[in-house]
């Protein structure tokens, strides 16, 4: 006798990286650590986000943001970087696009710089070490903020 198994549809949930239109959110990752960049990229792409570009310092990040604009939804920005630090890059990106959604990525002990960044217009922050849950939670929270 044949039995019919009723399996739940495990793919039913829409990946967090997709907008209601089905288009992926586009993200720019600015970090001088290849490890952190890869970590954020893996977490985001596994949820359907489109990592549009990565940059190794604030200056490069600012230029990439201008190139991608307006097709860019979110930036993750390391604080301590060579050439141009993350707080300066944040300031310059906000000058260019005051609606920019930027999440600061910070090591512990940088509370003053995180506060400064939030005052300058950063929408959120994540303290390292990064994990999937923490990153996705903050990214989604930031994308929902108007």
């Amino acid at each position, binding site marked *: 006798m044949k039995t019919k198994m009723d399996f739940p549809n495990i793919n039913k949930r829409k990946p967090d990286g997709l907008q209601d239109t089905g288009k992926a959110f586009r993200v720019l990752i600015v970090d001088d650590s*290849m*490890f*952190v960049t890869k*970590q954020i990229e893996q977490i985001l792409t596994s949820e359907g986000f489109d990592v549009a570009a990565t940059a190794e310092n604030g200056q490069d990040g600012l230029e990439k943001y201008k190139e991608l604009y307006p097709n860019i939804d979110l930036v993750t920005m390391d604080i301590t970087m060579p050439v141009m630090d993350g707080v300066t890059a944040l300031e310059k990106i906000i000058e260019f696009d005051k609606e920019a959604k930027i999440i600061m990525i910070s090591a512990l*002990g940088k509370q003053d710089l995180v506060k400064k960044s939030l005052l300058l217009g950063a929408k959120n922050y994540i303290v390292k070490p990064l994990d999937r849950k923490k990153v996705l939670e903050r990214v989604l929270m930031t994308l929902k903020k108007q």
Partner: protein
Amino acid sequence: MRVEYINPFVEAAFSVLKEVLRIDIQRGELYLKSVSQPVLGVTAIVGLAGDVEGRVLFDMGESTAIKIASSMNGEEMVKFDELAKATITELANMITAQAVTKLHELGFEFDLTPPAIFTGDNMEVTDTGIEALIVPIEMEYGKIEINVAVREKN
């Protein structure tokens, strides 16, 4: 050197390693070195300057470094390449940042240099005028020695 300087580094190393590697970690016996000492093959160094000055080494063998980098990247790595170096640098960054937060809470003010990685065989470190306190940390991937040589600035 006062022992209270090393404790924040050991506690931070424990908490960060447990969080990122999710394996069992044991602390070995603290010991003191005042002369030249060999280092294990892969060493991340962070400098401190301010009320206290000196340096912290995170010292491990290459195979331990590769196993840690593999675990942190979620993929099998076979050599100590650029990604592995970036991973160990970031590990040193996370541990130091957490330790420094504790030291700042105790009232010490100082800045850190970005971590640098040394690799090679038969290396030694010599600290003139500062003794080094060393705490070995044992785990299934091998041993990491937290090697702290700092002093209060006169």
